[in-house]
């Protein structure tokens, strides 16, 4: 398959700081590639390298050309922390940026696509943060690009607006648009991306499909049982053959399949141990992120709680089952 984006041994230094350290990356035509990593890992610098807005060592090719030689009519970019002129309306902004290209999509169609038809004539500065970001996404789509770079496109957008934009991006991807996306929302990246790359300290430390990354780095499924009698519960579960670990107010049981949950409940019942709830979950990209970046904090045993400080935990793809326990 033809590669729309290629980065070979890309290195970028800001004085003593190494922002990118020998990054190799290729993205195929029509592929959605998600780039994740902690703040300062080099995501934005890599986007800038691929769009030709920063000079780097190594080779970068976009549609077989140097980024600054690419037909600008075919490329779209939403930079991080981008703000257009604030006293233009959403409609005027779409018209303005559309006017910079040879041809542009219909303004009303774009406003409708990003869900701003009702507020099209409001000044940008009077819109909410989420609406402003949707205008920016609309601006990035205005030339119907073949290659689209989105640097944290859904930052500040509420869950409903975020899902609406995901649908927009999925439609673009279905139409063959190559998309490179950076995000701190693992759910977003997991849902949208064909492949994901994780940057850490300027190095691309893992690349693969979300399923591949989860299988390789996400660990197994997990059952978390909230109970004040965690030590006794862990012993009872261990006696029943489960790998259980006691925490202050919960027991964590790793590598449990859904059909084994009943056995775990029976083991607790047999020992007459009370519990408040059971939560079962599969590993997600968030677990991959935490595993590969080494980020975590001491807290309850649930995956989402562990991930809260590091990433957006809008994890609608988590498969979770919760059962109220007896008292």
């Amino acid at each position, binding site marked *: 398959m033809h590669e729309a984006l290629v980065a070979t041994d890309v290195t970028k230094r800001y004085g003593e700081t190494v922002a990118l350290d020998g990054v190799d990356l290729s993205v195929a035509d029509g592929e959605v590639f998600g780039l994740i990593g902690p703040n300062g890992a080099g995501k934005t610098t890599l986007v800038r390298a691929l769009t030709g807005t920063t000079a780097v060592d190594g080779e970068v090719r976009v549609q077989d050309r140097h980024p600054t030689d690419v037909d600008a009519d075919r490329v779209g970019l939403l930079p991080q922390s981008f703000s257009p002129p604030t006293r233009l309306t959403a409609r005027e902004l779409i018209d303005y940026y559309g006017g*910079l290209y040879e041809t542009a999509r219909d303004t009303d169609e774009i406003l409708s696509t990003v869900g701003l038809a009702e507020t099209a004539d409001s000044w940008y500065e009077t819109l909410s943060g989420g609406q402003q970001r949707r205008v920016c996404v609309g601006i990035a789509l205005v030339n119907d690009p073949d290659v689209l770079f989105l640097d944290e496109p859904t930052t500040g957008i509420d869950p409903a607006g975020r899902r609406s934009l995901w649908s927009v991006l999925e439609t673009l991807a279905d139409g063959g648009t190559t998309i490179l996306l950076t995000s701190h929302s693992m759910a977003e990246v997991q849902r949208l991306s064909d492949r994901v790359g994780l940057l850490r300290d300027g190095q691309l430390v893992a690349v693969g499909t979300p399923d591949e990354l989860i299988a390789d780095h996400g660990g197994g499924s997990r059952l978390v049982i909230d109970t004040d009698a965690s030590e006794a519960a862990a012993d009872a579960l261990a006696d029943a053959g489960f790998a259980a670990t006691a925490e202050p107010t919960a027991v964590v049981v790793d590598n449990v399949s859904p059909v084994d949950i009943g056995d775990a409940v029976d083991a607790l019942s047999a020992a007459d141990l009370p519990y408040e709830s059971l939560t079962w979950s599969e590993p997600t990209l968030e677990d991959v992120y935490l595993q590969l970046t080494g980020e975590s904090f001491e807290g309850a045993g649930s995956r989402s709680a562990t991930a809260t400080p590091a990433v957006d935990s809008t994890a609608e793809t988590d498969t979770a089952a919760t059962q109220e326990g007896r008292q």
Partner: protein
Amino acid sequence: MSRSRRIRAEATAAWHSFLRRKTAVFFTFFFPVLLVVIFGVLVRTQPTDGGLFAEPAGYYLPGYLATVVLFTPLSRVGSEIARHRDDNRFEKLATTPLTRGEWLLAHTAVNVLIIGLASLLILGLVLLLTTASVPPVVGLLLLLPFIVLAVVLFCGFGALLGRLADSQDGVIAASNTIALPLLFLSDTFITLDQLPAWFGPLVDLSPLTYFARGVRAITYTPGEPYATELGVLAALAVAFFVAGAYAIPRTD
């Protein structure tokens, strides 16, 4: 065709953005009013007393026009570049077909319009409030190339300032520091014989000098040649515009 489409889109956005900043609009036009009222009406010219403002009122018209031609593009273009940089707009524009030269041309066109209107206001006020007289309309049309070229020149200068300064505050401070001496030492409000003899050649180094002398030749001493001033101003306008366009940030 697409080039004019891009420039029109950029200029339209810049024009609307300016018009919707009421404070900026008010003070852009209030500044020349204040200037003419203070120096033309309150201070007034004293042709027999020597010192400052010892020339007839018409002598100072180039100075009043120089004020808006100098300060407005320097601060507006410089600030606009700082604002664009802060908001990552140049990063976005670098991936569009709009070139840096087209961007500067669009913003220069907006400044020509704004400064053209301010210049008309100044001419009207000078005629209305002072004893100065100006040539008929046909003669005044000769001012147009001087105003346009000077605006082009100082828009390019403003772009250089915007590139060098690291913030909007920095642009304003730098433009004031540069514009103030230029305004008073460019054969505008202070005549050459009021300055030390050794300073004369330095006045010739100021781009604004050629604007002031050319405008004065048209409005105050009709018949005096101004082709040299126009030629020098045109050459400097091209040089500063090219340098300014090149200075506009494209990468980090």
